[in-house]
């Protein structure tokens, strides 16, 4: 059959139009969920945890659960399975998730994040991690008395919800408009989905977030390294990032630490985790440790250079990935023991820091969660009973404790020692002691035994839970400067830390240490920037102009999930590094452009960072410029990737963290109306019947064509 020429252009015109038509049909059927934080799959050497959808996504009838009775109805009497419950935060508990899972009636779970001001956490507390965090990777993994938190259950509310393997997706909805739309859709179509009435169509949700990795880290790393395929595929990546460390005074290899035991280490961890991927603003009490340590670093950084030179070496360390079986600290200790920390000595580099080993550490002070000390009767100094059997270690631990005692005396905080049968809580210090029992250390925290924090390692460890309520009527710049209850109490803690470190490093009397005070406005700003809004004046001042621009689009705080290693450090590690440089370093007024402010190639001791500075408004033409400046400090990144991934033996050794994150390619969720199965079957059957009938019809028409159609007179 020849197509008339005039039709051809029409046909070409029709293709894009028809396609556009198809798109709009798609849009008429589906409404996309704009933002979600999915639960993703993680793996260690033996297990996979987290969630995944089926390859083509999971579909379920939406059911809004606002009350416990709604969940019970789903488990007991719902008939139109599978369901996709949308739960308020209060109902997302271990019991409900397990009940729904066991009922076999759900194909996924949606959780409403709720308004930030009204997250409605479960009253009894919520901690989805283990009762004994990082069990097996600390120093007591096979100790007869202390292994598996035998003496003290640190996190009694821990349900282990995050550590289970789910074969359905779970997502946190972070956009209130999505939640409103879903509730509205539920109210219009699904409200009558009860025992007596099952009226279709029903509102349904599809989630697609298929995970690529499976089984365990060993399997997925092996598969990623297979070279049989023409286009190799990576199934998972090791978790990791960068630790941040800096010294009050530069370490130089010209004066090695080799034989002296005169180094003081102050550490805190920066990362946290929640079941839902990369949710920002979680882990408020978890963050108090490193915030207090940063403020203490600022207080000590203000000392004049003469005094700094007279003091012992003081090193601040901010560990990444500690949540996942001590990634950051285990790597640092590994590097130290091999003589590779901060870096192997190289004769070609004139300026290099001296090697640091665990044997150089005289005092180790770790700041753990410290936000809730007022509720638990003061600060608590935890130490390890095993290493203190040696008198030298015991003496040094006692020296740290008396320094803290002196510092708390002058700030009206009480400091206590937990009973002597108690071992160390989960802490980076444990990784140091695991390798070297000669490290004298104390872990400072706000709990004597079990955590004071009822929302440990969950998305509900929110600023409001640690007394950081900011009156709603304040403008952003007022809120930024506002002193919350937490701000007040954390300033005291930071002061205690600064005075303790000063006293340990300088051997001066407690009364002289009392001249050092952490700045309360620094604490206010750090709390606000890390836990409320990352797009804040302090971060805008200390970051590079490029990073500041990246923060502009961020509505809340920075996520603190360790994530997988990229070329550059995580945003959060970068911010901590810049702040530490800002607090410890010196301004270089002669270097005024980013190109001038570059770390020289021969200098491996210092980092030069060009900071964006404060905005300066030019009154004559109302333009804003920035008072950018160059800072130099001995602040560095160090690798925070588990040593397990360095060799196959170590991967199998059970000695180091083996956590990996699965990759995924698609991540979306959409809402649509679904008809009953009977209706779907009828539609399909009718279609098939129509095709068959027309085929038969055509066959007969074809055989009888000479009868039906009279051939026109031959025209050729």
């Amino acid at each position: 059959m020849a197509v008339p020429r005039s039709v051809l252009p029409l046909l070409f015109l029709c293709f894009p139009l028809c396609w556009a038509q198809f798109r709009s049909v798609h849009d008429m059927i589906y409404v996309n969920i704009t933002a979600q934080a999915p639960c993703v799959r993680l793996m260690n050497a033996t297990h996979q945890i987290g969630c995944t959808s089926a390859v083509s996504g999971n579909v379920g009838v939406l059911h809004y659960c606002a009350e416990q009775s709604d969940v019970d109805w789903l488990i007991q009497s719902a008939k139109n399975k599978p369901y996709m419950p949308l739960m308020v935060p209060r109902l997302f508990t271990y019991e409900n998730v397990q009940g729904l899972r066991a009922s076999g009636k759900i194909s996924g779970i949606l959780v409403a994040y709720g308004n930030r001001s009204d997250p409605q956490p479960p009253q009894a507390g919520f901690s989805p991690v283990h009762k004994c965090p990082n069990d097996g990777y600390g120093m007591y993994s096979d100790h007869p008395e202390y292994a598996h938190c035998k003496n003290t259950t640190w996190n009694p509310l821990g349900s282990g919800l995050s550590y289970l393997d789910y074969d359905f997706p779970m997502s946190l909805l972070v956009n209130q408009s999505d939640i409103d739309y879903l509730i509205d859709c539920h109210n219009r179509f699904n409200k009558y989905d009860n025992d007596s009435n099952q009226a279709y169509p029903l509102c349904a949700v599809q989630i697609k977030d298929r995970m690529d990795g499976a089984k365990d880290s060993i399997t997925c790393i092996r598969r990623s390294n297979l070279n049989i395929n023409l286009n190799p595929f990576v199934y998972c990546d090791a978790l990791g990032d960068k630790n941040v460390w800096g010294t009050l005074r530069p370490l130089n290899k010209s004066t090695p630490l080799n034989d002296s035991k005169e180094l003081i280490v102050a550490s805190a961890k920066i990362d946290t985790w929640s079941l839902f991927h990369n949710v920002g603003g979680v882990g408020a009490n978890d963050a108090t440790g490193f915030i207090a340590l940063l403020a203490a670093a600022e207080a000590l950084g203000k000392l004049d250079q003469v005094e700094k030179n007279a003091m012992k070496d003081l090193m601040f360390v901010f560990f990444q990935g500690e949540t996942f079986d001590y990634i950051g600290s285990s790597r640092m200790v590994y590097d130290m023991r091999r003589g590779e920390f901060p870096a192997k000595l190289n004769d070609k580099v004139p300026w290099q820091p001296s090697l640091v080993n665990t044997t150089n550490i005289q005092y180790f002070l770790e700041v753990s969660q410290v936000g809730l000390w007022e509720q638990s009767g003061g600060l608590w100094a935890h130490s390890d009973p095993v290493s203190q059997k040696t008198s030298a270690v015991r003496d040094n631990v006692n020296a740290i404790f008396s320094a803290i005692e002196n510092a708390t005396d002058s700030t009206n905080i009480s400091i206590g020692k937990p009973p002597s049968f108690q071992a160390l809580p989960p802490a980076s210090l444990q990784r140091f002691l695991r390798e070297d029992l000669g490290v004298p250390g104390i872990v400072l925290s706000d709990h004597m035994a079990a955590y004071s924090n009822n929302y440990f390692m969950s998305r509900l460890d929110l600023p409001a839970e640690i007394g950081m309520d900011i009156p709603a009527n304040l403008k952003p710049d007022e809120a930024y400067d506002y002193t919350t209850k937490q701000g007040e109490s954390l300033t005291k803690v930071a002061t205690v830390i600064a005075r303790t470190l000063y006293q340990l490093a300088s051997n001066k009397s407690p009364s002289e240490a009392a001249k050092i005070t952490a700045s309360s406005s620094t604490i206010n700003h750090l709390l606000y920037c890390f836990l409320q809004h990352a797009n804040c004046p302090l971060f805008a001042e200390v970051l590079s102009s490029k990073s500041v621009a990246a923060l502009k689009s961020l509505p809340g705080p920075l996520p603190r999930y360790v994530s997988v290693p990229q070329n550059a450090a995580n945003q959060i590690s970068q911010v901590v590094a810049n702040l530490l440089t800002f607090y410890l370093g010196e301004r270089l007024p002669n270097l005024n452009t980013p190109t001038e402010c570059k770390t020289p190639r021969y200098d491996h001791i210092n980092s030069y960072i060009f900071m964006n500075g404060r905005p300066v408004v030019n009154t004559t033409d109302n333009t804003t410029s920035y008072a950018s400046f160059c800072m130099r400090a001995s602040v560095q990144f160090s690798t925070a990737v588990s040593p397990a991934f360095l060799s196959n033996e170590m991967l199998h050794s059970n000695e180091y963290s083996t956590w990996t994150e699965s990759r995924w390619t698609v991540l979306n969720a959409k809402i649509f109306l679904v008809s009953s199965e009977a209706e779907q079957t009828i539609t399909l059957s009718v279609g098939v019947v129509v095709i068959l009938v027309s085929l038969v019809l055509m066959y007969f028409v074809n055989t009888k064509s000479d009868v039906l159609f009279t051939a026109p007179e031959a025209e050729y």
Partner: protein
Amino acid sequence: MNLNRVKDEDKLELCRKYYYGGFFALPFLWLVNVVWFFKQAFIRPAFEQQQEIKSYIIKSLVGCILWTAVLVTWMTIFQMYRADWGEIADNMSFIIPKGIA
């Protein structure tokens, strides 16, 4: 090629070539042979080369069935135990499925 236009002795030659070719681990060649020469071997009235063609076709058919049986058995075993075999199975695979053990 239209078999009707080929002489009977050439048909036998062709059938034999396909039969021997199948021994190079090419069971599909045997299948083609069986389908192609089925009419010649079993339906057409007897002719001189028919007995020989028939024997080749039967042997091709048997070989093809044996191959199929072996392959189906292996595929079933492999699919059932792939996850348990771990590394060995991964090394045997050309495409490893995503998201399952």
